[in-house]
């Protein structure tokens, strides 16, 4: 079978829709005092570098209420996690 560039019969698993860049990924987080993360994805947190809140779109049906933490893990890795107060879950994301 032959097809011109831009079309091929073999392209069965093609992804044709636009996707989000930097979409949040679910994270396993154990919290300590004050709700700050103590363990992130089974790694101990060595240091919480920064903390901030993002409250936005409260006027829509999909409001955003997140508490972000930038942490350094014991392995030295820098990770940004947030707790979604709407869904009640933790996610990792490059903020």
């Amino acid at each position, binding site marked *: 079978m032959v097809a011109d*560039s*831009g079309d091929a*019969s073999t392209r*069965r698993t*093609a*992804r044709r829709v*636009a*996707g989000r*860049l930097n979409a*949040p990924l679910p994270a396993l987080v154990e919290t300590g005092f004050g709700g700050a993360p103590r363990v992130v994805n089974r790694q101990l947190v060595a240091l919480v570098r920064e903390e901030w809140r993002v409250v936005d779109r409260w006027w829509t049906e999909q409001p955003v209420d997140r508490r972000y933490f930038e942490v350094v893990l014991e392995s030295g890795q820098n990770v940004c996690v947030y707790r979604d107060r709407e869904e009640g879950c933790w996610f990792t994301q490059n903020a």
Partner: protein
Amino acid sequence: MIACLLIPGFELRAALRSRPRLALVPAALAPDPSEEPLLGPVTAAASTVGVKPGMRLGEALATCPTLALVDRDPAAVEQEWEEVLRRLEDTGFAVDPVEHGVVVFETRGVERLYGGVQQALERALEAVGSGWDPRIGAATRRFTALAAASVARPGQILLVAEKEEESFLDPLPLSLLPLTRERYAELEGLGLRKIGELADLPGGAVAERLGTDGHKAWGLARGGRKAKVRGRKAAAELAEVLVFPEAVGNELTLRRALGSLLERLLARPERAGRPFRKLAMSARLVDGGSWRRAVTLRDATAEVARLRTALGPKLQELPAPLLELRLEAVELAEHTGQQLALVEPGGEETAGRLREGLRQVRASTGSGSVCAVVEVAPWSRIPETRALVVPRDE
């Protein structure tokens, strides 16, 4: 409506076309030598004696010592599948093949032609032929159509109305969802057995416990997204075949045969001077099996010497002497030549090479594999809304 036509165990059925006697005895598709020794699809006779697809080879042979192992026949599978798709296309359906044995299409365009959804789908079953035991599921969503086809009997058309989709999916087993074996085990450990039980859980909790794959499966359990089916553009056949009077295994002879096939393929008027982007070589082996390799060229070319260099080494991978060698042009490039400039502007060569590289990636991995990052709201406080990844097909 979106319809899904399913032919279970297509690879085994295609391999058995040349050995129909084996379809009546306990037989299974042999595992791929390069992968884990797990059985492929099995015949009905094998299933009745306890042999199941995915079973370990040793366990299957212990369960049924007379089990016949059918060698994989990738060339026959490709050919038979293409014929099935063409018959559906000839009936008027714009098909979107998912994998061998699974194809999705919209019925909207032909409903009036055939007098309704049911009649149109009956025509689709007729077109495929009862020998393949096809079954069809139809619904307003893709996943529901696939689930309906999975539970339909051979030759049955299962239509699921939009308002009944949720109640239809709820009692179905979780195994219909695209999850890894570990994830199924995890869900079973949590006491979940049916799609409805997963769909009832809160999405956030599922994402936290099972990750991205689990969240996707949860979305499907709730019916999945409504999306249109885009039919493939019908492809034209451009292939050359060389049949040998007796089995050939000599590399020199094979290379000469390849050269001859290349010259014949290059001389075909349908090519209209366009160079090859992707080629596939297939062979019918002396023991009845087949072999197939596809090659994507870094630079689209129509030069015999370069094509020989790219394809020649693949002949060393042939597992046995062959009786028939086939060379097929899978994809052609658009351009027929390059306009050279006397003095090229700075960076032009790099940009040209980059474009060519991207075309090669697209040809080997498919449309939508090359994406561009487009900033939509760089000022946003919500990181995932700042930019989108948009497929770039040119």
